[in-house]
C-alpha cells in the first residue's frame, strides 16, 4: 500500500461514546495514517460524501431513537449510488445472520459485530480492502492487454 497516501476514513454511528472510541482507536494506529471524519447520522455522512472517502465504517442501526433518521441500509444505498467503488464496512451490535445477509445484499464489503474484538477486525479488514482493490486493478490491467 502506498504509505504516503492518507486514508480518508468515514465513521458513522449515532452512539457518540462508541464513535469517539473508534476514532481514537484508529488515530492510535502507528502504521496506517488516517484522515478521519466522524458523523452521528447517515444524512451528515451523505452530505460529505464528495470528500471521497477511501473506506466508510457505517453503523447498521442509525434510526433507533430518531425515528425519522435514515437507517444504515438506506445510507449504504445512497453511498453506493454515489459511487459503487467506495467500500463500506457495516457495524452492528446485533450478531444476527439476517442482518449480515441484508448488509451483503446491499453490497457492503464486510459486516462486523460490535464487540470487544470489533476494532481488531476492522483494523484487519481495511488493509484487506486495499489489497483486494489492488488485485482487481491488476486483473483489469491484464484483461485490457488480452
Amino acid at each position, binding site marked *: 500500500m502506498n504509505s504516503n497516501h492518507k486514508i480518508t476514513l468515514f465513521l458513522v454511528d*449515532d*452512539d*457518540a*461514546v*462508541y464513535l*469517539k*472510541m473508534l476514532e*481514537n*482507536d484508529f488515530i*492510535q494506529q502507528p502504521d496506517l495514517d488516517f484522515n478521519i471524519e466522524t458523523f452521528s447520522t447517515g444524512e451528515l455522512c451523505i452530505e460529505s460524501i464528495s470528500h471521497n472517502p477511501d473506506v466508510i465504517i457505517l453503523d447498521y*442501526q442509525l*434510526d*433507533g*431513537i430518531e*425515528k425519522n433518521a435514515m437507517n444504515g441500509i438506506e445510507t449504504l444505498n445512497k453511498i453506493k449510488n454515489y459511487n459503487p467503488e467506495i467500500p463500506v464496512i457495516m457495524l452492528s*451490535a*446485533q450478531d444476527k445472520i439476517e442482518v449480515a445477509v441484508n448488509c451483503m445484499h446491499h453490497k457492503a464489503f464486510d459486516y462486523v459485530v*460490535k464487540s*470487544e474484538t470489533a476494532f481488531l477486525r476492522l483494523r484487519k479488514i481495511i488493509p484487506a480492502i486495499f489489497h483486494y482493490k489492488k488485485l482487481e486493478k491488476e486483473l483489469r490491467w491484464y484483461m485490457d*492487454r488480452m
Partner: protein
Amino acid sequence: MNTNFSNILIETHPDPLAIITPEGNIQEVNHAMTNILGLTTEKLTGTLFAGYFTDPFKARELIRQLFRQETVKSSSLIIRQARGTMADVLLSGYAFNEDNGKGKGAIIFIHAITSQKLALMYARSLIEASLDPLFTINTEGKITDMNEASINITDVSRDKLIGTDFSEYFTEPQKAKDVYKDVFDYGFVTDYPLTIRDGKLTEVLFNGSVYKDDSGIVMGAVVVARDISAQKRIESELTEAKIFAELSTGIAEDAKTKAEHATITAENAVRAKQQFLSNMSHEIRTPMNAIIGFTKVLLKSDLSPKQKEYLTAIKMSGDALIVLINDILDLAKVDAGKMVFEQTPFKITLSISAMLHIFESKILEKNLKLEREYDNNIPEVLIGDPLRLHQIILNLLSNAVKFTTKGTILVSTRLLREDKDEVFVEFAVKDTGIGIAPNKLEKIFENFQQATSGTSRLFGGTGLGLAIVKQLVEHQGGSISVVSKQNEGSTFSFVLSFLKTNVAAENETDTVILDSEIKDLRILVAEDIALNQLLMITMLEDFGFMCDIAANGKIAIEMIQRKPYDLILMDLQMPEMNGFEATEYIRNRMKLHIPIVALTADVTTVDLAKCKSVGMNDYIAKPVDEKLLYRKIVNLVQGSDTTAETQALELKNKQKARCTDMNYLIQRTKSNPKLMMEMILLYLEQTPPLINTMKKSLYDKDWNLLYSAVHKMIPSFSIMGISVDFENMARKVQDFASTQQQADGINDMVNKLENICNQACSELKEEFNNIKSKTNELKS
C-alpha cells in the same frame, strides 16, 4: 491520309507538338508549342529541340532512345517556358518513316502535368512509400494493384502478383478468403489477424474497405496489412519486464522483512541488555541493602575503636559499590534512550548550597579553600531537573576535591543571556589540582576513561563520572567544556537552559527542617525478604515510629482495611501481589490517598515511571539511606492532609462498591487524560437522554424504541468498565422488547439499568473532576 488534314490536326492540337529530324532539330511545331516556348515558328525551326529543357542531356538521350525504339512514353522533363518560367511536362513521341513522303522523323507530344495529376502522383508515392502492404482486389478476390511493401513482403514481383488470388499468400487461405468476403459483405473489415506466407511468417492485422465508382457500384476493395510482429515483440517484452519487476519487488520485500527482523533482533538485544542491567542491579542491591543497613545499625551500638574502624571500612566499600552500580545504570539508561528529565520549579541557589554543603567537611579535611560566585541576575526560581543538576555538579565537585591537594575550588554561576521564556546559565567548577595533559583532554568524557591509567590507583573512582556528566548535560540540550593546564588546575564549565516561571519552587527536600516533634507515626512495610523486614523495623523504630510488616501486597491490603496507617513503604517485587498491583488496588478500588513510597532495588526509569503511573507518591532506592528515608516519610506525612483517622473515615465512605472501572478506558486511551475526559463527557451527555427514552418507551409500551434505547446503551458499558452483568441484563431487556410483550421482571430490570447508569454518571463526573485537577496540577 490527307496531309492538309494532318497539318490542321497538328496545328489545332491543344498539347504542344513538334516534329523533329533524326538529328533532333525542330522541323515543325504547332501553335501550342510556339505559345509554350514563346517563340515564333520561324525562330524555332531548325533549332535543337533538346535545348528547350532544363536538362538538355536527358532530353537528347530521350530523343535518341525514341529513334532507336520508335517510341517513348510519358517521360518526365522540365521545359523552359516563355518569360523564363519552368513547367513539369511529360514527353511522349513516335518515330515514323518516309511513307508519308516527309522522310524519317518523329512526332513529339509535350503534355503539361496539371495539379490534379500531381496530387494523384503524390498519393501514389505515399502509397508506395507505406511500410504496410496495401492491395486492391476485385470482387473475385484477384489482386489488381499493390504497393512496394506488398512486393517486398511476398517476395513476388508486381507483374506476377497482379491477377493472382489474394488468398494464396497466407498460411490459412480459407481465412484470407473470409477477409475479402467480409469486406464485400459488410463494406469493411478491421484488425483481422492473418499470417503472410513469407520466409518469416509475418503476423499481420487486416483492415480493409470497399471502393465504389461514381454510380455507387462496388469496384473492389483496398486492404491494408499491418505488420504486428514488432508490436507482438514489444508486448512480450513488456510482459517479461512486468514479471521481472514483480520478481524484484518480491526480492525487495524479502530484504525489507530481513531488515525488519534485524531491527527486532537489535531491539530485543537492547531490551535484553536493559533487563540484564536491571536484574543485576536488583540482585546486587538487595543483599547490599542488608549489608549497609545492618552495618549502619551496628555502627550505632557500643563498639571498640577497632570494630568501629572495620565496620566503617565495610560501609565505605558498600557505598562505593552502590555508586558504581548507579553510574552503570545511568549510562545504560542514556544508551537506551530511557533517560527522562523532569521539568519542575526549583531554586538554583539552594541546589548549589546543598551540593557545597556535602563537600564542606571533605574540603576542610584537605585544608582547601572553597569559593562561591553567584550571579544575582539569575531568576530565583527556574524550571528544570534539579536532581540531574545535582548529579552533574556533584560529579564535577567530587573530581575537583579528589584531584586537588592545595589551593582553592571555585564554584561559579553566571547568567549568559536570557529571552522571554528561557535563561542560559553557565556553571563552572575551577580547581587548582593536578590538571589534565592536553592529549588526554579529548578522552576524559569517554566511558571508563581517566586521564592516566594510574589515576584510579591513586585517586579511586570508576572513570564513569565525566561520561555521565557529559551525557546528562548534552541530553538536556546543554554543552560542556574543559580548560586545563597540567599541575595548575582545571576548569569544567557547562551551559544549561532553563525555562522561566512565576510559580514558587516546591519545598526542596534538602532544605526541609527536620521536625523532631513527629513521632508515633504508624507505618506499614510491605516487604517479603525477612532480612529487609528486620532492617526496616530497626530503622523505623529508631526514628520512633510504629511499624507493621506485611509479607506481600495482598496482606498489606488486608491490614490497611483493618487498621489505619500514616504511610506505606511498598516493596515492588513481592509474591502473590506485587507493589504495583497493591498500589493500584489501594488507589483505584479503595480510593485511599494514603502516601505510598516505593522501596525498589530496581531503579531503571521504566519502573519509576510505572510507580508514578499507579499512584505512588515517591520512591526510595535500596540500600535505603536512613536520612533520606526519614526525610521522605516526614515530608509526605506533613504534606498529606489526610491523617490516619480521616483515612479510616474515608475508607468507610468508599465501601459502597463503585460500578465503573477506569482501567479499560486508561488502557484504550493509553492514559491520555484529555481523551479520557472527552470520552467521559460524551458518556455524560449521551446517557441521561437515553435513560429517559428507555423509561418513557417502557411506559408507552413502545417496544421498538425500548429495544433501540437499550441497544445504544450496551457498547458504553464495557468502555466505562460497568459489570458485564448489566450488559447481559440489557440484552435480556432487548429480548423481551423484541417479543413485543410485557414480561415479568422487565420493569425491575429497567429500573436496575436506570440506577446503574445514574450511579455511573455520578462516578464518572467525579472521575472527570479528578482527571481535570490532576492535569491542572501537572500544568502548573
